[in-house]
């Protein structure tokens, strides 16, 4: 997944007219860089914000697991824990 970032940066130069997506700013808190790095390759981060703050801890765990198991997100176990903890603390109930 780390390889994505140079790819995006290169295309941003090559295809300026295609970039309509505005940045989605997540809460600055420990773990935010893991969320941005692992999640934004496949979907914009507004998916997280719109699904908040109602999820309890179990629901955020289930969502992270679904992204890995059902959708094949290549996220390490260590990063998955950091991501789930960040979501629970900042976008949970």
């Amino acid at each position, binding site marked *: 997944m780390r*390889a994505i970032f140079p790819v995006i940066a290169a295309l941003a130069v090559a295809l300026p007219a295609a970039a309509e997506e505005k940045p989605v700013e997540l809460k600055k808190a420990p773990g935010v860089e893991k969320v941005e790095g692992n999640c934004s390759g496949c979907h914009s981060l507004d998916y997280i914000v*719109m699904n908040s703050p109602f999820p309890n801890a179990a629901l955020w765990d289930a969502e992270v697991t679904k992204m890995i198991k059902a*959708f094949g997100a290549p996220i390490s176990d260590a990063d998955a824990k950091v991501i789930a903890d960040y979501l629970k603390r900042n976008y949970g109930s």
Partner: protein
Amino acid sequence: MLTRRHFVRTAGAGLALGGAGIGAAALELPRALPEGLRNSAMLDALPGKKPLIKLSYRPPNYETPIEYFRTAITPNDAFFVRYHLAGIPEVDAKTWKLSVGGDGANGQAEITLDELKRMPAAEVAAVNLCSGNRRGLFEPHVPGVEWGYGAMGCARWKGARLKDLLDKAGLKKEAIEILFDGADGPVSDKTPDFIKSIPTWKAIEDTTLIAYEMNGEPLPHLHGFPARLIVPGWTGTYWMKHVTSIKALTKPESSFWMNPAYRIPLGKFPLVARFTSQETAVNTPITEIVVNSLITNPLDGAGVKVGAPVTVGGIAWDGGYGINAVEVSSDGGKTWTTAPLGQDLGRFAFRTYSSTFTPTARGKQVVMARASNKIGQTQTTELIHNPAGYHHNVVHAVTLNVS
């Protein structure tokens, strides 16, 4: 692996975190929606579209503001946009081909767009409604795209009948489902591609089309150019966009987007159309649209005057049995009067209604509308909760401020 095509309209995504979103404050979104959605949704215009309510940039999920539902036909440039996966190529009409085959077919056929357009054409006015429309109004909330009222639209779709296409390959009698794939797909090759099947009985109905026109125009890119499946009466999950492959199957399709995705609990909804090859002991694929209606005028929170007539208008729709009646209440549901219906564009289309009342006292006044269809189904007053947030057809209410 992440493939290159997926970044075509998403460059810079989620990277430069410099600016906050704009526009959310200008939107009057229902208070029942998740707080996070109300903070992040904004009006935003995709290429070729009017500003719609942006729920997510990538994949693009944009809903139609209520004001555009004051007519039975929804304009193309205001029609909602929904994608599951972010790999959305611009299809070249010159090289696009549609293959028809599968183990449930006797042969194989491949046709070009010109050939598709030369086939006998059919047209149907039909509602395309996201299974999860109004999911954001579920209480308690359920995860997913947190749609309000506008993940739907009604258009006139023109195309070839699917059954005529299937005839080119020849259906075996063992063919139980027809499977569709489109040119769009996932960003990661580990993510299940979005493919969907429908039962053969639904596929061969006269109104099931492979459409290449929407409201008299070539199908716009974001609505499935150059051709998409139209399944009148059934929810939008089956209406495959950018369709490239049609396969007749002798066994039920078992991939992710058929199961566990898009499932409703058995027995909770009063549905007629069944998808028996996909049913389990506990659930079934979502199929037909439940009877429903929306008040499009006045909007929630509008100010009106004592003694001045108020016209209550909106639309009603169902899974293709046809709207029987729409009743309107101006006293919070105590008494109801039947509202005259507008032009009938066919049993799969939005049906407008309109009725008038005159406020007599200052204060808050709750106006409601409820539809029934021609097989006796009506909207529910209590939400039928289900884990995926489908089939929300609770009677719509708006609160007016009378002064």
